[in-house]
């Protein structure tokens, strides 16, 4: 072995932070083994096999000019995973973000997950009204154009469907991917008007406790939200990552309830009725309720739990040779910010602290990473997040022990990715 290769690959006992190859984050910061996804050990300096770099063809031909609306490189086309149309559920269904191919924390608008109950309405904002009525001093109606004149705030928030990761509770899905199992979470900068401003304009009466929010889609989907939340941090989102909210995200107006189950962030918002009691809509009784083993059911489970997920390496990826890999993923909590993410390579027996690569904003995704030396032995990779309220992400066993398997909503459990001796990564249960 040459001197330089020794310097690059030697791992001191000191650098091991947990069993089965998890290393101190110094190895990513200093050893230059990073790169997106599954980085391989580099060829040894001075020993590259006969490379002779030439000027590539694209450097010799002028390319196309500007375009009105940009798109991704043909070599880097990412896609949501969306279901097939079902004529017996017109417009219904969900699409999932390609988490295993994304880096950083912001989900591009075209890749933000979707869930529709009756398709995407073709709303002309000129004919769309937002009404605030019920227990208010003065019922009001707002035009979209007028809403654009209000002071706005911009906040980065995750949005997660409460059905996300529900499949893990059933078991199975060995060929599941980060996208197929967990792709109902996304994160964006949402810009809009604090709902409290418009509620105060209408004048909420003292006896009010809830609001009902109804969308302008063909399902007129409705949800009841406690007034405390509406007056705290709920937003009327008009912009998403700087552009008008996409039709599939609720154009022209989306209610956004930070940290809460996605379904409460009613899209195509057209009606807010201030009330004394919850309205008991179908999507807060028949659906989005968690039935426990004793057959009672939890209703209005709003904040999404602390959660994390390794996105690379993850299901259906492959580690092809021994070496040091950048294990990376995302974490979030509806109860605040992420304080810590630990990673295990031995199925949860020993844990090492990951580096948090991004800002640690309230109710937003963070990105973490940790170097991992794979030597060809089987491994089970897991991540475990802790939030600012001290909540620690539970194991799957703990979730099932607490809530059973009738329920399929609100599952924050630790994901296990198995790596076999061939380097194949699959969804496993430990």
């Amino acid at each position, binding site marked *: 072995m040459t001197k330089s290769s020794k310097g690059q690959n030697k791992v001191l006992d000191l650098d091991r932070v947990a069993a089965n190859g998890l290393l101190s984050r110094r190895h990513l910061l200093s050893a230059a083994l990073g790169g997106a996804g599954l980085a391989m050990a580099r060829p040894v300096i001075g020993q590259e096999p006969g490379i002779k770099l030439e000027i590539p063809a694209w450097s010799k031909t002028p390319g196309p000019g500007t375009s009105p609306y940009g798109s991704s490189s043909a070599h880097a086309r990412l896609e949501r995973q969306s279901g097939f149309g079902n*004529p*017996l*559920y*017109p417009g219904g269904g969900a699409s999932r973000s390609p988490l295993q191919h994304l880096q950083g924390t912001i989900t591009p608008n075209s890749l933000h997950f979707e869930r529709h*109950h*009756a398709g995407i309405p073709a709303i002309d904002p000129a004919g769309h009204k937002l*009404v*605030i*009525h019920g227990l208010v001093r*003065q*019922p*009001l*109606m*707002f035009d979209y154009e*007028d*809403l654009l*004149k*209000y*002071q706005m*705030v911009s906040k980065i928030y995750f949005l997660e469907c409460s059905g996300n990761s529900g499949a893990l509770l059933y078991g199975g899905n060995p060929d599941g991917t980060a996208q197929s199992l967990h792709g109902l979470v996304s994160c964006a900068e949402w810009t809009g008007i*604090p709902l*409290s*401003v*418009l509620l*105060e*304009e209408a004048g909420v009466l003292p006896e009010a406790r809830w609001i*009902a929010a*109804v969308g302008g889609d*063909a*399902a*007129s*989907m*409705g949800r009841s939200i*406690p007034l*405390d*939340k509406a007056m*705290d*941090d709920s937003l009327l989102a008009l912009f998403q990552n700087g552009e008008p909210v996409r039709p599939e995200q609720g154009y022209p107006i989306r209610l956004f309830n930070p940290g809460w189950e996605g379904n409460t962030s009613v899209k195509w918002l057209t*009606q807010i*009725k201030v*009330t004394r*009691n919850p*309205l*008991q*809509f*179908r999507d807060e*009784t*028949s659906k989005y*309720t968690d*039935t426990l083993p004793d*057959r*009672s*059911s*939890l*209703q*209005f*489970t*709003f*904040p999404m739990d602390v959660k994390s997920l390794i996105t690379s390496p993850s299901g259906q990826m492959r580690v092809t040779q021994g070496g040091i890999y950048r294990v990376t993923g995302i974490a979030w909590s509806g109860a605040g910010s992420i304080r810590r993410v630990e990673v295990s390579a031995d199925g949860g027996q020993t844990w090492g602290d990951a580096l948090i690569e991004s800002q640690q904003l309230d109710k937003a995704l963070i990105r973490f990473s940790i170097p991992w030396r794979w030597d060809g032995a089987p491994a089970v990779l897991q991540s475990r997040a802790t939030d600012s309220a001290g909540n620690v992400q539970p194991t799957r066993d703990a979730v099932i022990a607490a809530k059973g398997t*009738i329920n399929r909503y609100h599952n924050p459990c630790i994901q296990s990715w198995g790596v076999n001796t061939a380097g194949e990564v699959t969804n496993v249960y430990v």
Partner: protein
Amino acid sequence: MFTYKRLLKASTLAACGVAMLVSTAQEQVKLGQTISEASLAEFDLIAEPGGMGFPPGSGTARQGRTIFESRCALCHGNNGEGNSAATVLVGGNMQSTDSPLRTVGSYWPYASTVFDFIRRAMPANAPKSLTDEETYQVAAYVLYLNGLVAEDEIMNAQSLPQVRMPNAEGFIDQSHIQ
């Protein structure tokens, strides 16, 4: 809590209530147009558990059968048996040893939701195409298929929200956790 909120609250008090064309750091615009509850009669589809918001009209399950067979059975089957987990409208028992089938009859805590949901969202291929009268009839039929009302029982703004649902006591409100 956001810090800007305090700023906005203070400025809302300071504003004189005259609509401004643009907002400034000092004054929050107020551009809501006044409207009366009466003008929302067609727009507000919320039918509340306490009976508020139910429209005039009535219907029985016997009247609803034909509508159900022509407008609903395509997706829900003639007897509400459904053609997928999402479209089963009948049956189930919350105390069964297996994972219970959760339907209108076995799971839903409020009868008002049956009317509210059908009026706003069904039939899924032509939402809001039923008259209020037809909605009462077909809601009565869904309740009847579940053995919750008699075939000739009249469902209206008073009687429908009063229908006793078997799982009414089955829910635990978590809304205090925010």
